[in-house]
């Protein structure tokens, strides 16, 4: 294995650990999962946090009209991602991490939810969620082993990238500011 691929795997592992920790999983005493099950688990936790984030944005009542319709459409797709990942985990008999009980882990990973006060700040937060999602999935596509799982993760990653572009467009920002879309952990707008 090359040094770079070792770094990729370590980065993927660090991301998985970070997301699991942020989401309050694994349960006390449970060993962290390794390999594809571990990457699936962290992806599922990421999706659950994303779903929680959009639910909070919609429940807050800041979005209306086309912006609300957009957020609802994205939320439906994020839920589909989570179901797809859960199906995989069931199929390979991997233990599913406990669902986060609040959006607090998301606020930890992406501060600013409590400061949302209007449609623009809600969409800005949504763009941050999508940047985080793109970054997360991009980090796990490399270390994954199972080919169909890689395809699924990449198909979800492409969808998250589309969300990001459309949300940025609604914000009046350049929807695609770079030819290579990697996402970021701490979006700067």
């Amino acid at each position, binding site marked *: 294995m*090359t040094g*770079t*691929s070792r770094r*990729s*795997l370590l980065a993927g592992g660090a991301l998985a650990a970070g997301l699991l920790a942020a989401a309050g999983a694994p349960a006390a005493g449970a060993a962290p999962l390794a390999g*594809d099950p571990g990457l699936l688990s962290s992806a599922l936790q990421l999706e659950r946090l994303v779903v929680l984030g959009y639910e909070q944005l919609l429940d807050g009542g800041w979005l209306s009209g086309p912006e609300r319709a957009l957020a609802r*459409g*994205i939320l*439906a*797709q*994020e839920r*589909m*991602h989570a179901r*797809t990942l859960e*199906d*995989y985990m*069931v*199929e*390979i008999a991997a233990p599913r991490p406990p669902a986060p009980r609040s959006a607090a882990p998301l606020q930890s990973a992406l501060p600013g939810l409590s400061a949302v006060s209007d449609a623009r700040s809600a969409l800005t937060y949504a763009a941050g969620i999508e940047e985080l999602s*793109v970054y997360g999935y*991009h980090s796990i*596509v*490399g*270390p*994954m*082993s*199972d*080919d*169909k*799982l*890689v*395809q*699924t993760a*990449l*198909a*979800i*990653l*492409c*969808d*998250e*990238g*589309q*969300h*990001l*572009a*459309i949300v940025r*467009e609604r914000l009046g920002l350049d*929807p*695609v500011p*770079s*030819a*290579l*879309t*990697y996402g970021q952990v701490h979006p700067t707008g």
Partner: protein
Amino acid sequence: MGGPALTRRRLVLGGAAGALSLSLSACGAPSDKTIEHETKLEPTDDDEILYGGALVAEEVLATYAVALPHLRGTQRALAERLQAQDQEHVTRLDQQLGAQFGHLLGAAARARQPVSPTPPHDADSALALLVQAEDLAIAYWIDSVPKLDRNLRSLPAAIAVNDAQHLALWRAQLRLPALSSALVEGSTT
């Protein structure tokens, strides 16, 4: 294996057809999947995959070239920006081929195999052609990324996400839903 030994048809059609045959849609239908053991696609040389990706990106560029004369105003400006990003995809793939495999003949070989899509006749048919081209590029990467060495997946994944973003923007310009699926797999039709 060097790039010049390859034929564009073999790579583009092989990769695209592969994408179709992979039944990625099964990702949403767990009963179709069996991953008791890791799923492995037919192995392909890494350099062949990257070279094929550059060919597909060149095909996308050729599509922009025939579409641009039919576009005006903001659509033309958008096309010019996204065309520049697709050009960067070719450049970055060539750089990676050179860095990883010492292939410096890729661009010259491609130049001997010019691509000339059927010209559109108006703005909407030009936009439809761009949607088709970006869809094809996504399908190629969805099929190919799992076959790549883990260390080489990062760039193609970032390119695939960018292509997916382009696709969403062009679909919106065509008054189609920008976010058409939770799993963005591309299409070869």
